[in-house]
């Protein structure tokens, strides 16, 4: 349902600061998948996700969402934006309305929905991200950091997109706030059958949630595979400035010391299940 065909993007084309942000990227993401996207700053991942809802247009190549080529003049970009919900980094900085409810309604009202339906959607979305009803009449600026973040995510969710893209939704949050948001995102993915693209710097978070992991490096796709396959290539990940979860490092050390265990272990639970029989036998 998401398809990139030979997509390239060059910043300030022709200028002296010309920089290639994406270089001939082709990939496909199926409906209902949960994709984790990793890559260091400047790897092109931000540019790529902004392309998926038409905020950035490719210099070359095609972006196809649900069969619609976004460079086609007949395709209305605004409609694409309702279909592909994008939650940018630090999304709480986009809150502006008097109340949380009104702010979440902004997207649905832009879609041309009547007030009552917009509010219904807003309430549903607020519930989905775990904001209690009593917070909806408050000013968004009186919420705590984590609540603001979730209100902003609800503002995108209320448009009922089919695809939800989140750019580092847990940046700056503490472990409890981070776990809460990630749990909600997993719920949304399952309950609403959303296609989710999660950009994160945290290998642990991505490892926990994603069906497939997209690794970007210097504007190109470095790997696009299941977590166990990706984390099995720890050395390559480190070469391009990324790391693997700490537990993967532990298991890699054991393996290189001669213990026969499979590579690409990335959760503590799996490591525990593999080690237990080895230690008790």
């Amino acid at each position, binding site marked *: 349902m998401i398809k990139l065909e030979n997509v390239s993007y060059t910043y300030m084309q022709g200028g002296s600061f010309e920089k290639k942000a994406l270089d001939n990227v082709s990939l496909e993401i199926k409906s209902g998948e949960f994709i984790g996207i990793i890559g*260091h*700053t400047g790897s092109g991942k931000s540019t790529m996700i902004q392309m998926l809802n038409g905020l950035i247009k490719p210099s070359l190549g095609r972006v196809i969402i649900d069969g619609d080529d976004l460079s086609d003049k007949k395709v209305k970009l605004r409609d694409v934006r309702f279909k592909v919900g994008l939650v940018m980094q630090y999304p709480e900085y986009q809150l502006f309305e008097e109340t949380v409810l009104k702010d979440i309604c902004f997207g649905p009202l832009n879609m041309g929905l009547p007030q009552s339906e917009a509010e219904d959607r807003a309430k549903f979305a607020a519930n989905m991200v775990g904001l209690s009803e009593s917070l909806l009449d408050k000013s968004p600026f009186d919420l*705590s*950091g*984590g609540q603001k973040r979730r209100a902003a995510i609800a503002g995108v969710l209320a448009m009922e997109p089919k695809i939800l893209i989140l750019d580092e939704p847990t*940046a*700056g*949050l*503490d*472990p*409890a*706030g981070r776990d809460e948001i990630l749990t909600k995102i997993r719920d949304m993915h399952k309950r609403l059958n959303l296609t989710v693209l999660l950009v994160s*710097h945290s290998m*642990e978070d991505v490892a926990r949630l994603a069906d497939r992991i997209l690794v970007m490096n210097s504007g190109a796709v470095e790997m696009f595979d299941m977590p166990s396959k990706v984390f099995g290539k720890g050395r390559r990940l480190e070469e391009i*400035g*990324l*790391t693997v*979860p*700490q*537990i993967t*490092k*532990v298991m890699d*050390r*054991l393996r290189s*010391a*001669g*213990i*026969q*265990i*499979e590579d690409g272990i990335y959760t*503590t639970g799996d*490591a*525990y299940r593999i*080690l*237990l*029989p*080895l*230690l008790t*036998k």
Partner: protein
Amino acid sequence: MTDNIISIQDLIFEYKDEDTGEINRVLNGINLDVHKGEFLAVLGHNGSGKSTLAKHMNAILTPTSGKVFVHGINTSDAAQLFEIRRRVGMVFQNPDNQMVATIVEEDVAFAPENLGIDRDEIRKRVDSALEIVGMTAFKRHAPHMLSGGQKQRVAIAGVLAMKPEVLVMDEPTAMLDPSGRAEIMNTVKKLNREEGMTVVLITHYMDEAVQADRTVVVDNGSIAMQGTPKEIFPQVDKLKELGLDTPQSTYLIYMLNKHGFDFDPAVLDDENCARILLERLKQHNTDLEGVAHD
């Protein structure tokens, strides 16, 4: 005089909510000493009071009751304000919001200029501060052209130029990417180990706190736990209760011990974790053939 650079005694801090008129108690009887030359990590979830605690260390805030001493000076003594701030350098979370000047070296010079230090000495301090944080090559650059980690290193240099006795950092890595975070942690460790700088690092990242000499966990305005990282992190249940994480290695050993093993729980990194597992595996002299596919 002891070797305490900062001494916090029965610190209580309250403020009045302007809308509701309620009195909020943010810090509730904190006792804490910062020793000369140590690397102290203050952990806590958002809203635990850890940032408020940090702001008491250089008199940005003063206690409602209790006392805070910096090098023996009471922070409530308004006449000594600049003396306190010069001794306790503070770096904040957002690298953009603590740079004043449009050129790196001018920004680093800001504090010594304020202190009225003469030009040759400012020059020396700016050069050496930039050298320590490894930003000499960028001294004529504009701050907004730098990466997050680089900006934060300039912010550290800006504070070092005051020749402080202690560096207090309030979540300096919260807005950085992994490579930026590594840059800052390396800089901090270098300052502590090589320059003997006393460091107080406020954070909610446990992988940063494990690198400290001593860790204090703040919860609900009080000190909930304190000790070396090896003492703190094996207490997995308690940390979870306080809204904090444990390193995966520590957690793995914790789970194995729960199953009846007797591994040393004070394991914080992958190297040690792999080492003690390997010892045990070899000890059991297990036949490892064919186990990989069970």
